């Protein structure tokens, strides 16, 4: 983007001759070549390569000549671990999306009321984001440990029957991971949304005050719709975090108890490198790509295609 802007500044001087369109903005085009090349080779090229090899029986090394059709996909969808992974990702994804936005927005709105010590609170809320997922996972592993964590402390206070051990209970373990994920991520979303709130013109607030509209109504019916681009940014960041969730699970439960907290990214990594079965790993990663596209394409169509640019 910045490159194009720079070239635009220079263009008035060169347009006097009305040059060939191909050579228009030559510097910008030259400067974009590395990125175009990267996009073509690394993103598209490697994606095609991966998808192709997901139809082969590649083991430790890629074997482009051992074509097996859809075998890898059949095996993938009959594997319990994969099905559990997908289910976990769906639960984690939906909850994390809703809660991150909700908590992030509420915190941002509270900070936006010009409270005293805003800087302190902002730092506190944002601080977890400075920790890596591995550290976050380990911290929450201890907090949720039944002997030393919350359960142990409450029991020592005298409430003997209190149980709260999500990480040891297969049916709710994914929520234990969710807590850690939200603790880590919602501060960041708060900061982004706060920046958006600060971008709202002061006159809007003045106008709504003159009209006598309550504050909460102003937020929901006026400010939020105006912040649409900011929400889209936040949404994309959260969604990317959801799809790639891996290190948090590894640090907190390593997929356990049993296979109750497995996630797709972990399946891909382990099939590719531990099980020495590239074909199966590629098939799983292709399914992940497909699921992203299923969400992305209709959205992109609605956003950019349907109504044209206005």
């Amino acid at each position, binding site marked *: 983007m910045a490159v194009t802007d720079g070239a635009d500044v220079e263009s008035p001087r060169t347009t006097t001759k009305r040059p060939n369109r191909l050579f228009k903005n030559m510097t910008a085009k030259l400067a974009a070549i590395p990125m175009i090349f990267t996009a073509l080779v690394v993103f598209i090229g490697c994606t095609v390569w991966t998808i192709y090899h997901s139809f082969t029986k590649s*083991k*430790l*090394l890629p074997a482009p000549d051992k074509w097996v059709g859809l075998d890898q996909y059949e*095996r993938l969808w009959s*594997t*319990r*671990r994969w099905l559990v992974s997908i289910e976990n990702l769906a639960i984690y994804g939906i909850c994390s999306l809703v809660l991150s936005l909700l908590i992030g927005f509420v915190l941002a709105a509270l900070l936006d009321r010009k409270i005293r010590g805003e800087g302190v609170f902002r730092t506190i809320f944002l601080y977890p984001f400075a920790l890596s997922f591995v550290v976050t996972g380990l911290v929450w592993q201890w907090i949720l440990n*039944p002997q030393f964590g919350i359960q142990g402390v409450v029991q020592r206070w005298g409430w003997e029957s209190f149980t709260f051990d999500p990480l*040891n209970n*297969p049916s709710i373990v994914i929520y234990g991971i969710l807590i850690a994920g939200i603790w880590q991520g919602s501060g960041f979303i708060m900061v982004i949304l706060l920046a958006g709130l600060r971008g709202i013109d002061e006159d809007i607030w003045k106008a709504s005050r003159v009209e006598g509209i309550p504050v909460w109504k102003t937020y929901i019916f006026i400010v939020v719709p105006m912040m649409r681009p900011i929400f889209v940014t936040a949404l994309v960041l959260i969604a990317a975090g959801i799809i790639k969730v891996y290190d948090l699970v590894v640090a907190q439960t*390593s*997929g*356990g*108890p*049993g*296979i*109750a907290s497995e996630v797709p990214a972990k399946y891909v990594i*382990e*099939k590719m*490198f*531990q*099980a*020495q*079965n590239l074909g*199966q790993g590629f098939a799983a990663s292709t399914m992940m790509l497909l699921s992203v596209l299923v969400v992305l394409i209709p959205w992109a169509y609605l956003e950019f295609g349907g109504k044209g640019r206005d």
Partner: protein
Amino acid sequence: MNLYKATTAAIAFCAAGAVSAADLEVTHWWTSGGEAAAVAEFAKAFDATGNNWVDGAIAGSGGTARPIIVSRIIGGDPMHATQLNHGRQAEELIEAGLMLDLTDVATAEGWADTVNPTSLLDSCTVDGKIYCAPVNIHSWQWIWLSHQAYADAGVDVPSNWDEFVASAPALEAAGKIPLAMGQQAWQSSGAFGVINVAVGGPDLWNKINVNKDADAAAGPEMAKVFEAAAAARAMAANSKVQDWNQATNLVITGQAGGQVMGDWAQGEFQVAGQVAGQDYTCLPGLGVNEIISTGGDAFYFPKQDDPEIEAAQKELAKLLLSPEVQVNFNLKKGSLPVRGDIDLTAANDCMKKGLEILASGNILQSGDQVLSADTSTQIEDLMVEFWNDPSYSAADAQAKYAEIIADAD
């Protein structure tokens, strides 16, 4: 003058470096106290030959280290030597021509005559050529029993698996965990393999794992094995630890009756100052079938262009199997040596039991030797779910297991 001196010194230094033979970078995942001491024996012996052992330890278990090792070899940045488990993990690397052929060293040193059991060397052999140097034998088929736990519960220490199962209610009544189990996949799968050999017998194990007989895997004998595993699962229900050494610690401190774990567990008992026979008992083959599997570690040497390095690699391969190094290394590691012709009088009771079984030839191949990494991981996935989910019935797990064996390669 100073410059002159410095230059000559530098030249002399470089020249000396070139004359003394090569630096070899060796990767392995032996990072715990006992393991590091054992690998230092290799380094010491290799440095004594005038070469230089550059240690490339990778923290974490084999599961972490193997992908790093393999990707370095495939990626064109191979180390000079590396530990792997002997078996099928390096099969494709050998077929792709990335590993050094050690056949001439093996012939000159007569490995074929000294390595015992010979299946270890077979695991290193592809198309009649030898590609790795086995260094030790680790076996899975052990149960470790806490004398204190049984004394507290007022029952005798069991001498086989059936007695162990029978004593479980007494232990539970005394507030003990009958069976300590870590919850990681490899432990679930390993313990199942041990129960399989003990309850079903070695023939059944061979039929399924070596011949990949899916009918046997779905058969009534195997059903008994799964029932036994389900019973073991109930005994381990209260053992909420992750790592194997935490589970071993439950046995050492008398909180748990026993643990099914490989012979590396005795290092933990040793560190805790416990004595075999007095504080703990080890039963090979769960006291039913006295048999051990012969998995273990081997060194592979990725191919290099430099003939000097290749010479040093072969020197190292030769050294790893020399009698003296084998004794020093295995005593520290707590594993069994790969040579049948050396004397290990310093070994402790449990190790001696293992050596006797090895000498009598009651051996099985290890899972690493007969199953591909892909199949092993599928079994691990199944087992970790089975052991941690009490609602997963034995029959369902067996059906899934038979499917995996039918697809195994």
